């Protein structure tokens, strides 16, 4: 809200610069977002004169609980309270009603049909006005406040809105059929053309001001074109009302129409000040538009609030704030805010109707703190019982995963929760993916059901940047809904790599370093190993977006805990991936439940081992796991089998492959003899012949 400093000075005296004033207001809870002034050119362009230029203006951010501060007078009262300087609010002389010609009550009749939505409706009639431009001083005030001068009558209503915070509306009284003002809900299908020229279709929960025939204003939001003040207007009816904040907010949101009026009604307008504001407007209209004020006021006030008196316990104030203020000091602070206070054992504080934010003791404790100054409250560390600080177990487990994947060369990434439908379809998870009802765009319409698709789009973007050598991983939440619409937020870990994981590799055979299924599997195995999950099985598997021959599910004790594979050619095309990409993803909660923290130390062996290489020739389809399993089963002297090489090529028949295995034999009881080793090796070979039809190359 723009606050011309000159205007402010009419109601409060202060002796500080605009910058100091900005600091005072900010520290009282009314943040000054900027200090500005108009240039002469701006002033003239806005319809004012150069006299408006160069004068200090503060732009305030008023918090939504302080509707009473959305006015010059409201802020003046705050400044007076903080600086403890005199506050001189505007006055009206219109005290003795009925002395101003034919009474308004002859002309106007008010009916409030929904007292819950309109707590008060008051009006004053000003006759024989001459519509014309406002005087320069008034125009300049308005443009400094950021408002547009229109005509003397409309300008007065805006001036009062800014000065007192009371939204007013001026009707051309001759256009109010039968002098009847009805505050009612809109009829189904009713329309009104507001003064901005837009025809608006109304809904039954919207409040309108109507005459005996038609809606003439959208209550508290904007007037109707059909009753607008124009050059021909002679008699002006000034509306000064109090509408329900929720009703105004709902209407304003529904119509997408926010006005200075609706903004204030949403944030509470003082029902006690309606008549005062109407009188002040009437006096101004008389003074600048030559009108005559009709005798009396019409004022329907069905929603008069009960008087609010709050008790404040001084010892509670000091306990809550950590201060040692005297009762007198507290009372003085409240009085400075215009809150009448009587002091006894407790303070009894009368809450004026303008302060809808003061509802219980704690609200007044805040007021005392505010005027005392937050910076004057002592600072100390909480004297609480010693509590054990700790992270959650799952977070700590995720950290362990993170550290492992970092050490494997993975760059951590953090991807968006919102993903496109395309990525969801890619993974074939539409049935379990959570959809946002009101997404910002289709690209952001789902919550990610898995991490791999998000990693692939990150890889794709980096490929486009020219970064093709990369390994990235993410540890985080994914989102699913179950068949019975329960939302779940499991945690997942995923890894993706492409190209060569070497930053600088001159003089090395780069191709041998290129990411492939087995390099990716190595990372997955290192992760499993690090968190203490031994002997997982990798079983051939099928996933919609991965290469059908190069995909596996990761199994532990018959339960799937993840997938690993190479991205299919179609996926590469779809996501514009410029390199082969390898991925894996695992369920973090599953990993955590399987992880073993303890690692048991095994003593170094006492007897030497013997190593033999064998070249096992099998059909290409035979899987390594079945060979190893058969080998281990053959005898108990095998300590370890390591794969040295896999060969396929001209030296073998087609559809055959040769695996060179390094087999380690060891006994825990004695040094093995040559005969034992030969027998053991022969047992291995026999087992492989039977189990997988193996031959052996010399």
């Amino acid at each position, binding site marked *: 809200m723009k606050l011309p400093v000159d205007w402010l000075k009419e109601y409060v005296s202060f002796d500080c610069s605009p910058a100091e004033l900005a600091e005072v207001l900010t520290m009282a809870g009314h943040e000054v977002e900027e200090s500005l002034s108009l240039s002469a050119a701006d002033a003239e362009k806005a319809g004012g004169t150069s006299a408006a230029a160069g004068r200090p203006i503060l732009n305030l951010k008023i918090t939504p609980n302080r509707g009473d501060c959305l006015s010059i007078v409201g802020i003046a009262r705050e400044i007076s309270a903080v600086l403890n300087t005199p506050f001189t609010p505007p006055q009206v002389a219109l005290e003795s009603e009925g002395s101003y010609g034919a009474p308004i009550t002859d002309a106007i009749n008010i009916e409030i049909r929904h007292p819950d939505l309109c707590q008060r409706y008051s009006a004053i009639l000003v006759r024989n006005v001459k519509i014309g431009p406002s005087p320069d001083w008034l125009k300049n005030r308005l443009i400094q406040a950021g408002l547009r001068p229109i005509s003397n009558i409309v300008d007065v209503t805006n001036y009062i809105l800014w000065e007192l915070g009371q939204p007013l509306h001026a009707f051309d009284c001759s256009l109010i059929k039968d002098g009847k003002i009805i505050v009612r809900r809109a009829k189904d299908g009713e329309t009104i053309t507001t003064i901005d020229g837009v025809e608006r279709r109304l809904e039954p929960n919207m409040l309108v001001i109507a005459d005996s025939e038609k809606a003439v204003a959208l209550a508290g939001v904007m007037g109707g074109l059909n009753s607008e003040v124009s050059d021909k207007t002679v008699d002006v009816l000034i509306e000064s009302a109090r509408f329900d904040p929720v009703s105004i907010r709902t209407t304003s949101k529904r119509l997408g129409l926010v006005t200075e009026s609706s903004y204030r009604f949403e944030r509470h307008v003082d029902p006690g000040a309606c008549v005062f504001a109407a009188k002040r407007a009437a006096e101004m209209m008389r003074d600048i538009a030559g009108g005559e004020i009709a005798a009396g006021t019409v004022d329907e006030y069905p929603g008069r609030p009960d008087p609010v008196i709050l008790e404040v316990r001084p010892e509670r104030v000091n306990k809550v704030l950590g201060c040692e203020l005297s009762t007198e000091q507290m009372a003085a602070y409240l009085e400075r805010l215009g809150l009448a206070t009587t002091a006894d054992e407790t303070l009894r504080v009368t809450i004026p109707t303008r302060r809808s934010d003061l509802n219980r003791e704690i609200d007044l404790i805040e007021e005392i*703190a505010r005027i005392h100054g937050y910076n004057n409250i002592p600072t100390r560390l909480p004297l609480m019982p010693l509590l*054990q600080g700790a992270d959650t177990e799952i977070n700590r487990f995720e950290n362990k995963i993170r550290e492992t994947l970092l050490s494997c060369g993975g760059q951590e990434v953090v991807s968006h929760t919102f993903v496109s439908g395309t990525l969801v379809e890619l993974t074939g998870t539409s049935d379990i993916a959570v959809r946002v009802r009101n997404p910002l765009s289709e690209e952001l319409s789902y919550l990610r059901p898995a991490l791999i698709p998000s990693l692939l789009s990150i890889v794709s973007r980096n490929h486009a940047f020219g970064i093709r050598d990369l390994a990235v991983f993410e540890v985080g939440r994914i989102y699913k809904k179950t068949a019975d619409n329960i939302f779940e937020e499991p945690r997942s870990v995923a890894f993706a790599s492409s190209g060569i994981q070497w930053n600088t590799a001159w003089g090395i055979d780069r191709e041998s370093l290129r990411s492939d299924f087995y390099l990716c599997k190595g990372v997955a195995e290192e992760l499993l190993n690090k968190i203490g999950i031994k002997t997982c099985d990798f079983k051939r598997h099928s996933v919609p977006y991965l290469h059908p021959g190069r995909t596996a599910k990761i199994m532990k004790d018959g339960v799937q805990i993840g997938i690993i594979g190479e991205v299919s050619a179609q996926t590469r095309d779809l996501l514009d991936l410029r390199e082969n990409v390898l991925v894996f993803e695992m369920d973090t909660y599953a990993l955590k439940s399987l992880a073993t923290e303890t690692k048991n130390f095994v003593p170094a062996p006492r007897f030497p081992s013997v190593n033999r290489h064998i070249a096992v020739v099998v059909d290409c389809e035979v899987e390594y796991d079945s060979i190893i399993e058969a080998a281990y089963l053959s005898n108990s002297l095998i300590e370890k089998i390591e794969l040295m090489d896999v060969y396929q090529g001209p030296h073998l028949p087609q559809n055959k492959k040769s695996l060179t295995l390094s087999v380690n034999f060891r006994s825990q009881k004695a040094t093995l003899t040559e005969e034992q080793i030969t027998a053991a090796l022969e047992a291995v070979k026999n087992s492989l012949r039977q189990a997988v039809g193996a031959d052996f190359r010399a």
Partner: protein
Amino acid sequence: MNAQPNERPEINELLIYVQNRIASVSDPSELEPIEVEILGRKGRLTLMLRGIGSLPAEERPVFGQQLNEARRKIETIIAERKTELEEATAAARIKAESLDVTLPGRFYFVGRKHPLTITIEEVKRIFIGLGFEVFDGPEIEDYRYNFEALNYPEEHPAMDEQMSFYITDDRLMRTQTTAFQARVMENRRPPLKMITIGRCFRYEAVDATHSHTFHQVDGFGVDEGISFSDLKGLLLQFAREMWGPNVKTRFRPDFFPFVEPGADFSVSCVLCGGKGCSVCKQTGWLEVAGAGLIHPNVLESVGYDSEKYTGFAFGFGIERMPMLKYGIDDLRLFLDNDLRFLRQI
């Protein structure tokens, strides 16, 4: 090596001979034959020593002495030459093995943590050190926990800054991590000191300083006798750990429905030290958190006795912290995952 007075000419000749021989040698192994030729059992000097008996008795002592001296000299010059040759060989080998030490090192990519992770770990470290327990709440949150339990009146303008993404009528993407407060308090009793860190979502278009997705840390403590002073002390302690011991802090009144008194917490600008710069918009202060004492309505809604218990609450934006630390001026960089950015961390 000058000939000594009275020195026998054959000794001098021998010395000159040895000097010439070893000078022409280029490998230390060639010195051994020379040593044998002169000093060996049948070496020339050995033979001269044996022939000493054929000299007149009075000349024998002097000649013997001169021969012994010559022997020492020869041994010395051979040893010196040997050392000289060995050093030269070693130097040649080192020269041949020398590398261009300015060629780049070979290395594989080592991953870096994401800057948000680094920040979150740092924030956790500080609060855990202050005795806070971490809690993880859902991101798909109940409307009730996100708003109602936090004392938001129905259709209140305070919600204008909390435009939400809805999943169903009563479930939304949490707009603030503060949503965890009632969740925790419903199931626990004071004393409590809790934080939560995570994602929040607001219906906002993305630009350099706004995003529909961002991170917050929210914390609260509830016990008997908690006062506004405690909140001030706690956040001062956090700020000193986070931004250094010289950081200055400021509290000013602000409004959040779930706290009363409500405050905005600012720290002296970590870039200009409070003098005023573009980052702090010339104010010298950076607003880093919303805070306050937990509103009695919130405590009462979870069944706490608000006369007996009071509590503090605070919430920081996470992204702001690495933006200040690394001089990042565009919020979008965090979730864009451009490796040209992430690899700089």
